[in-house]
Structures are given as structure tokens and as C-alpha cells.
């Protein structure tokens, strides 16, 4: 699944094993600016492993990953600090990203509708709200390449639709987005479906009736 020279994310021949269990056997992926790619596959096929390798939080055994621009990664399970509030998380990550203001953070909190929890400790929040924060932390610096591992887990329908609004906005601004998903009924939202099976990615162009994800 290698792509053209314009790709901002390019993975070639990625291999990864856990002990004797070979998970990735030469996965290739290329994503261009403004492209929305779904990585689909059965449980245990290595989708999260692939995304972690693309993000750089896990080392591959072999292969090459090239990323142009800034990267945002939303892990599958929210990696947050239960003893800090939502607002403190935003300030902490704004400091990490050296952001001059919290403007983008406030926009995302508004879009995903969890502003009322800003002063609450994250340990006291529902799974869905924790996931909203998890996603917001990945988007805080408006990255050029986004890797999202099942980002809408625990979202209610309204938030789910708002998530796609956010994705639509990002795509229209030329951001490259890779999403791990199980939602086969939402295939028309994506530009490319990359099926992961037997350690390799196979590209299928998604249905094109509504390529920019209306709902």
C-alpha cells in the first residue's frame, strides 16, 4: 500500500513480533494531506500495534516510517491523570506543546461539549468524557498528521456526530488522518479503507457517494 511522493505519512515494510507471534509482516501505508484513512481488521490483527509504531510509541522490528509535519496520536485507552482536572490537563499539554494560548483547547472542549467538567478531577469522569479529553489532548496543537485509535469509544450519538464535524474540518484544512475503526457501516466517510490481515495492509478505495462525510 505504498503511495505517491506527496504523502505526509509513509510506512514501508513494517515488521513487528511479540515473541514468536508475528503481528506485522511488512505493512505499508501512505497517507496524503487531506486524506482520511480507515485501518480495519479483526480483533488481534495488530491494528493498535501498527498505529503505535506509526506514532513512535512502539519500536518496530524492521521497516521505515516517515512523517512530515507535526503528529497527534490518540491512544485507544485514555492516557490521563486521574488526580488532575480537565483544565489542568489542557494547561499541562499546552505547556508540553509550547502553545501560547488555550484557544484551540477551548474550541475543542466546546465542540465536544464537555466544558462543564473542566474543574472536575478526571478520575471522577465517565468513560465517554475521559475519551473526549483523550482525543482533545491529541488535537490540541492542530497537528498535520493524526493517528486515532478507535477515538469515539464511549461517545454518545450527539458527540459521535460532532466528532465527524471535527474530522471534516481537519480534512478540509489538509490534515492527514488515520483512524482505527470497527464501524463497517461508516465506510463512506473515508477516502481509503486499509484492511489489515495476516500482518499486511490491503488498500480498498471507499465508496465515493459522500467522500467528505456528511451525516
Amino acid at each position, binding site marked *: 500500500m505504498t503511495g505517491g511522493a506527496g504523502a505526509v505519512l509513509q510506512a514501508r515494510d*513494517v515488521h513487528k513480533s511479540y515473541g514468536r507471534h508475528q503481528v506485522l509482516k511488512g505493512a505499508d501505508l501512505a497517507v496524503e494531506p487531506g486524506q482520511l484513512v480507515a485501518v480495519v481488521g479483526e480483533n488481534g490483527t495488530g491494528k493498535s500495534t501498527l498505529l503505535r509504531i506509526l*506514532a*513512535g*510509541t512502539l*519500536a*518496530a*522490528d*524492521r*521497516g*521505515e*516510517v*516517515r*512523517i*512530515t*509535519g*507535526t*503528529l*497527534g*496520536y490518540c*491512544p485507544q485507552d485514555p*492516557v*490521563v*491523570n*486521574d*488526580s*488532575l482536572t480537565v483544565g*489542568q490537563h489542557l*494547561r*499541562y*499539554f499546552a*505547556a*508540553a*506543546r*509550547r*502553545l*501560547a494560548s488555550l484557544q484551540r483547547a477551548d474550541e475543542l472542549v466546546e465542540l465536544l461539549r464537555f466544558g462543564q467538567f473542566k474543574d472536575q478531577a478526571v478520575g471522577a469522569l465517565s468513560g465517554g468524557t475521559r475519551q473526549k479529553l483523550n482525543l482533545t*489532548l491529541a488535537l*490540541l*496543537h*492542530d*497537528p498535520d498528521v493524526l493517528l486515532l485509535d478507535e477515538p469515539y469509544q464511549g461517545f454518545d450519538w450527539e458527540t459521535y456526530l460532532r466528532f465527524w464535524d471535527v474530522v471534516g474540518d481537519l480534512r478540509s484544512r489538509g490534515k492527514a488522518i488515520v483512524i482505527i475503526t470497527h464501524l463497517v457501516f461508516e465506510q463512506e466517510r473515508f477516502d481509503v479503507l486499509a484492511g489489515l490481515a495476516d500482518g499486511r495492509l490491503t488498500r480498498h478505495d471507499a465508496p465515493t457517494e459522500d467522500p467528505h462525510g456528511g451525516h
Partner: protein
Amino acid sequence: MAVTDLTSRPVAPGQAAWRQFPTAWRFALRNQARNRLAWLLLVAFVPTWYLLMLAIAGHKPLTFRLFATGQALTVDGGHLTLISAGLNSVTMVVGFAIFAAIRRTLAFDKRLVFAGYRQATLIAAKTCAIAVIAATVALYTALVLLAFWRPDGGGWPAIWAGFTVMALTYGALGLLLGVLVKGDLEGFFLIVMGGLMDTFLQNPLGNPLANNPVLEWFPSFGPMQFAVGGAFGHRALWGHLALGLAWAAAFAVSGLVIFQIRTRTRRHPT
């Protein structure tokens, strides 16, 4: 696979990296201070432990030779036991609080580094927060001691200093175990059993072989000698206090190196 350190480019490079420190320091302190069980342990356990140990030890006179100076001392065995009990309290409270805080946030710290936090800044913030927590617990433990015994002259400052170095040592051990040990239970067991063995074997009332040279290699040896030397022998054994600090530094450096390894991420070539 060609990979190096992964951090996203700063969006606003005008904001210098050193400005990350106050945020990291404030949240590291808050994170470590929010352990309610540790505070409960501190408030309730320390006086209870003093009371219990004093009731067991009584006030029998005890003659022993202070290992550091060779000086023969005859002291109230209960008072000596209070020093042991105080040292033991700080090992457990500080060790537990720091271990729990570090272990709970390791994945979060890794995400912060991934997001662009400088590891050195996080490490410095954590080290400062540990030092503040350790010093606070040591001060409280030394103050509660005054309810049971008023040492003469410079005795109390020496005990306080010994407690502080002990707290720093076990805070650093908590850090090391927090980044090293896989399960909570193993960490708690190592801190509790390590602290008990370390401190009580130094007390000649409980251990007739407390002058055994092997005890010199225990982390509490230096602080215990400094506290006892100051409280009963009216000597400031600075070398022994420094020995305790060396243990603290060794644990801290080991823990921070492992923290650095466990939170590092990779940057893909562009």
C-alpha cells in the same frame, strides 16, 4: 528501523522550554500530595506507631556503643526506640506516597514526553516535588516526636535532620520502585519490609547485634547514627548524614535513569 526521539515541533517556539518547569512542578506536587491514604497514614499512623513502640520498649536504661564514634552511651531505651520508630514511619509513608504517585502516572508522563515535554524538565520537577514531600513528612514526624520526648540541646535538630535524609532516601527508593516494579503489591511489600528490616535492625534494644558491621551497608545506618549521635552523644556526625544522602542520590539517579528510558519516545525521519 531508523528511529530517534519523537517529539512534535513546538507550535509557538517563542515560548521557551524552561517555562515548562513551573507547570510540571506544580502538577507533580499536586499529584503526589493528592494521595489521601498516604496523608491518613501520616496523620494517624505516626503518633500511633510512636505510642505503640514506646509501650513495647518501656523506659529501661540501655547501654550500647555508638558505632560511628565508639562512644559508650547509656540511654533511655524508649527514647532510642522513638528514633527508630520515627525513621521507620518516614520510610513507609514517604516510600508509599512516592511509589504510588510515580507508578500511577508513568504512562501519562510518557504521553507528556511524546507531546513535547522535555524529559529533563519532568525529572527536575519530580525530584523537587519528592524533596518537598519528604521534607514535609520528616518535619511532621519530628514534631510529633516532641509529644513523647523532648531531647536536650541540639538533639531534636539532629533527629529532624536524620528523619529528613531518611525520607529523601525512601522517597528516592519509591521513585526507583515506581518505575521498576510491575505490580503494586510487590512495590508495597518491598517498601514495608525493606523499611522495617532497615530501621529496626539498627536499634540495639531490638537487635543485640546492632553493631554488626554489615549494618553499615543499610540505607538507614547514616541517618540513625546522625540522629542518635546528636540526641545522646551531642556530636554532629556529618559524614554519616552525607552517607545517608549518598543512598538517596544513588536511588534517585537509578530511578531517574530508568524513568528516562521508560518515557522516551521516537521521532521518525521526515
